[in-house]
C-alpha cells in the first residue's frame, strides 16, 4: 500500500514539475513589455559582478542622454544605465537594491524625473510592469509587488501568464520581440550599456511638455524615501541629477530639489540649467522635448563624466579582462554613434535601441519585420491591440505619451 502512495506522489510531483516548466516556457514566449526595457534590465544582470564603478538609475532620460561606453572611453570609469522608460520614483529604491545586489559602485547617480510623475502616470499599468516584469524574481521583487501593487492585482504580477496569455492573438508582436531579444543576447554583455535614441533633431513623435514639471506630493515622499534609503545603506557618494529638457523646471522646483537633497547629505546637479555650458543646442541636440539625440547625448555624457571625475574620487582600476570588455563596448558605441549621427542628420526619425543591428543587412531585416508586423496587425484589425512594443518602435514610451501632465 505504501508503495502505491509513493508511486503516486512521485508521479504527481513529476507532473507538477513538467507543468511548471511548461508554464515558464509559455510565459517567456508570451510576455511583452517593451523590448528596450526588457533589454536594459536583463542586460544589467549579465554584467560581470562588481565590475561597475558608477550606478545610474532613472527613466528614459538616462539611456537617451547618457552613454556609459563614451564616459568610459573619456574618463575610464565603468557605469550602467539601469534606466526604464516611465519608471515611477517609488521603484528607485528597489532598482538601487538590485544594483547593489550584484555590484559595488563607488557612486550612485539618480535622475530625478521619476519624482515628477503624477498619480495618473503611476496608475498606468505599463509603467509598473516594465520594471516588475523584467527584474529578477527574488525576495526584492516579491516584496515590491506586495508593497506597491493593489492587493486585487497582485496575483497578475506574481503569475505573469495571467496578464500576458492573451498575446497568443498577436504572434507578430511576439516574434518581433523574440527577434529583438535574439539580437540583444548576441555577445557576452550589452555593448551600449542601456541605450536608446531616435534619429532626428525634431521627431514627428513628439513628447513636448507645455508646462514644466513640478514635484508632486508623491514625488516629495519618494524622493525623501530614496534619500533615506541611501542613508540607511550607508552610501556616501550619491548624486541626484536633472538631465536637460526643453521645458525646464522652475527655479522653485530646482531650489526645492536642491534643499531636500543637500539636507539629506547628497549632491544635486541640474544639467538643464547648464545647457549652454554643456553646449546643448535646442535645435540640433534633442530628438524631442524630453530626450537628447546622439549629438546631445555625447555632449551631456562628457559633461557629466567630467563632473563625476572632478567631484568624486572614482577609482578607474579594473582587471584586464574588464578593460578589454569595455574597450570593445566603447569601440562599438563610437562606431554606432557615427552611424546614428549620419542618420540623425538625414532626419531618418527611427527608433534605435542598443540591440538594433546598424548594418545595412540589419536595417533591411528590421524593415522586413516591420512589414510582417504591420500585415499581422491589418489582418487582425484588433482595436484593442496595445501599442507596438516589439522592437522599441514606440520609444520613448507609450506611457510617457499618455502621461497627461506631459501632454498638456
Amino acid at each position, binding site marked *: 500500500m505504501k508503495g502505491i502512495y509513493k508511486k*503516486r506522489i512521485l*508521479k504527481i510531483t513529476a*507532473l507538477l514539475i*513538467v*507543468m511548471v516548466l*511548461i*508554464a515558464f516556457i*509559455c510565459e517567456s514566449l*508570451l510576455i511583452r513589455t517593451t523590448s528596450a526595457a526588457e533589454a536594459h534590465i536583463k542586460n544589467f544582470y549579465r554584467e560581470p559582478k562588481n565590475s561597475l564603478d558608477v550606478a545610474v538609475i532613472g527613466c528614459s532620460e538616462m539611456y537617451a542622454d547618457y552613454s556609459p561606453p563614451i564616459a568610459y572611453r573619456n574618463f575610464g570609469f565603468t557605469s550602467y544605465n539601469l534606466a526604464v522608460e516611465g519608471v515611477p520614483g517609488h521603484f528607485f529604491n528597489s532598482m538601487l537594491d538590485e544594483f547593489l545586489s550584484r555590484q559595488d559602485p563607488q557612486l550612485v547617480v539618480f535622475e530625478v524625473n521619476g519624482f515628477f510623475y503624477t498619480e495618473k502616470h503611476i496608475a498606468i*499599468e505599463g509603467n509598473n510592469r516594465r520594471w516588475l516584469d523584467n527584474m529578477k524574481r527574488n525576495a526584492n521583487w516579491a516584496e515590491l509587488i506586495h508593497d506597491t501593487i493593489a492587493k486585487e*492585482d497582485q*496575483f*497578475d504580477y506574481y503569475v505573469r*501568464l*495571467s*496578464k500576458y*496569455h*492573451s498575446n*497568443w*492573438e498577436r504572434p507578430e508582436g511576439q516574434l518581433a520581440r523574440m527577434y529583438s531579444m535574439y539580437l540583444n543576447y548576441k555577445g557576452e554583455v550589452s555593448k551600449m550599456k542601456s541605450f536608446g535614441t531616435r534619429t532626428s533633431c525634431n521627431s514627428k513623435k513628439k513628447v513636448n511638455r507645455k508646462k514644466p514639471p513640478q514635484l508632486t506630493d508623491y514625488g516629495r515622499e519618494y524622493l525623501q524615501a530614496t534619500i533615506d534609503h541611501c542613508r540607511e545603506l550607508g552610501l556616501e557618494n550619491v548624486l541626484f541629477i536633472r538631465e536637460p529638457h526643453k521645458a525646464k523646471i522652475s527655479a522653485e522646483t530646482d531650489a526645492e530639489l536642491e534643499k531636500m537633497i543637500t539636507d539629506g547629505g547628497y549632491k544635486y546637479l541640474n544639467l538643464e540649467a547648464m545647457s549652454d555650458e554643456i553646449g546643448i543646442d535646442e535645435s540640433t541636440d534633442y530628438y524631442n522635448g524630453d530626450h537628447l539625440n546622439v549629438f546631445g547625448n555625447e555632449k551631456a555624457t562628457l559633461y557629466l563624466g567630467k563632473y563625476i571625475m572632478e567631484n568624486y574620487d572614482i577609482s578607474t582600476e579594473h582587471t584586464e579582462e574588464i578593460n578589454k570588455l569595455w574597450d570593445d563596448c566603447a569601440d562599438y558605441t563610437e562606431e554606432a554613434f557615427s552611424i546614428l549621427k549620419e542618420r540623425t542628420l538625414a532626419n531618418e526619425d527611427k527608433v534605435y535601441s542598443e540591440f538594433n543591428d546598424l548594418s545595412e543587412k540589419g536595417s533591411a531585416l528590421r524593415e522586413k519585420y516591420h512589414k510582417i508586423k504591420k500585415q499581422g496587425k491589418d*489582418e*487582425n*484589425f*484588433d482595436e484593442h491591440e496595445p501599442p507596438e512594443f516589439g522592437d522599441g518602435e514606440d520609444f520613448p514610451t507609450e506611457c510617457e505619451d499618455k502621461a497627461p501632465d506631459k501632454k498638456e
Partner: protein
Amino acid sequence: MTYTSLNYLLYAAVCLLVYGVTPKKYRWWVLLAASMGFYAIVCLKYIGFIILTAATTYFGGIKLEKYITDSDAYIKSQKGKWSKEEKSAYKDKVTRNKKRICAAVLVFNFGILCFLKYYNFFADSLTSVLKHFGGKVPNLGLFLPLGISFYTFQSMGYIIDIYRKKYTAERNFFKFLLFVSFFPQIVQGPIAFYSDLAHQLYAGEDVRFENFKQGVLLVTWGFFKKLVIADRLVTTVTTISGDHKSYSGTAILSAALIYALQLYADFSGGIDISRGIAQLFGINMAENFKRPYFSKDISEYWHRWHITLGGWLREYLFYPVAMSKPFQKMGKALKAKFGMKISKVVPVSIASLITFIVVGIWHGANWKYVAFGVWNGGIIMISTLLEDNFTGWKNKLHIKENSKPFALFQMFRTFLIVLVGYYFDIAPNFKSAMSMMYLSVADLHISELAGREFYKTILLSKREIALVLAAMLVLFIVSLKQERSQTTLREQICKKNFVVQSLVFIVLFFSVVIFGVYGPGTDPADFYYMQF
C-alpha cells in the same frame, strides 16, 4: 468568489484537505461548514433565506411524516372497528390534511421565490398602468439570493416526496441544511433528488485517487468550455442583441447561432465544474447535459438539456397535472367523442404546454419567456398530436427511420426549433425577439460573411474565430465519443497509462491558461443560469 475564480479553487482545495483528514463520521460537518462558509462569503446578506427554506422544509417534513405515521397507526388500530365508509372518510381527511401541510410549505417557499423574483416586474407593470391615475406601486429593488431557484426546487422536491412516502424525513436539521446548501451546486444546480444526493453527502466517502483524477479532469474541462468558448463569445451576443436594429440580419442570425454555442458552453461548463468539485469529495452528482444538440426531436432535446430541471418538472409538475382529476375527466370526455388516441394525446399535450409555460415563467417575469414556454410546449403538443400524420408522410416518402441522412435532418430540424426559442432568450423583450427573427430571415446576406466588416461587427478577430472553431471541433469530437460510449470519456482516459493521462491533462490545462478569457482587463462573465 465565482466558480471560475482562483479563490474558489483554493477554497475547494482547502475544504478537500480538511475533509480528507477529518474522521469519516464527522466529514459531513466539514461539507456543511464549507457550504455555509461559501454562501456567507458570496451572499452573506441573504443567508437567512436559505436557512429559512431549509428550516421550514425540515420542520414541515417532520410534521408531515409524523402525521402520516400517526394516521397510518390509527387506521391500523381501528382495523375491524370501522365501516368501509368511516375508513374512507378518515383517509380523505388524512389526505386533505397531508395536502394542507405540504401545501403550506410549498406556498411559503415558492411564495418567497415568486415574491423576490416577480415583485419588481409586477410593481413596474402596475405602476405603468396606475401612473395615468397618479398611482404608483413601489419598486423594492429586490435582489435574488444566490441559488434561490435551485435550492427551493430541491427542497420542495423533498417535501413532496415525504408526502408521497418515498422516504422518511431527515431527523437532523444540520444534515438537511447540507442537502439544501451543498456548495458546488448552489449557484446553478444540478438540482438533485434527496434520494440521490443526501446519502452521499452524509456517508463521508474517502478522498480516492480515482475520484480525484476524474474530478480534476472534469473541472478543467468545465473551465475550457467556460473560459475558452463561452466568455469569448458573450460580448458578441449581448452587444448585438442589446441593439439589434443597428445590425444586419446576418449579424443577428450569427449572434443567435453564437448564443447557441455560448449558452451550452457556459451552462454545461459550469455544471462540469460543479460536478467535478463534488467528485473530488467522492460525491457523484446527476448529469445535467447529454449532448443536447444531437437530439432528433424537441422532446428528446428537453431530456438532454438541463436534465435535472426537466426531471424535477416531470416528477413534480407534469405527472401530477397529467394525472390530475380534471385531466382524467378530460380524457374520459375526449374518449367518448374522439376515441382512444385523442383521449390519451390531448391531456398529455396540454400538460406539456403548461409545464413549458412554467419553465418559461421560471426563467423570468417577461412575456418573452412566456413565449419561450409556449413555443417549446406548443411544438411538443403539435408534434404529439400529429405524430400519426408524420408517420404516414414518412411512409409515403419512403424515408427510412434509422438512416443517417434522416437522423441528420432530424437533428438540424430540432436545432432550428431550439434556435427560434433562443431568440426569446437573448432579446430584451418579446417585440425585439420577433423583430430579430424577422430580420434574420428578411435581411440575411450570406455574402456579408466574406467581408472584413462583418468580423468587426461580431467583435471577434479572425484568430479568435479560428480558436472558437477549433474549440468547437474538440467539443464535437468529445461529444461524439461520449455519445457512442457507455462510460464517460474521463473514465476512459483515467484507465490509460500515466503518460497519456498527464498529456491530456496538460494540453487541456494549458489550453485554458493560454486561450482562456481571464486576467486583468477582462470582465469575468457570470454564469448565465446564475440569474435564475
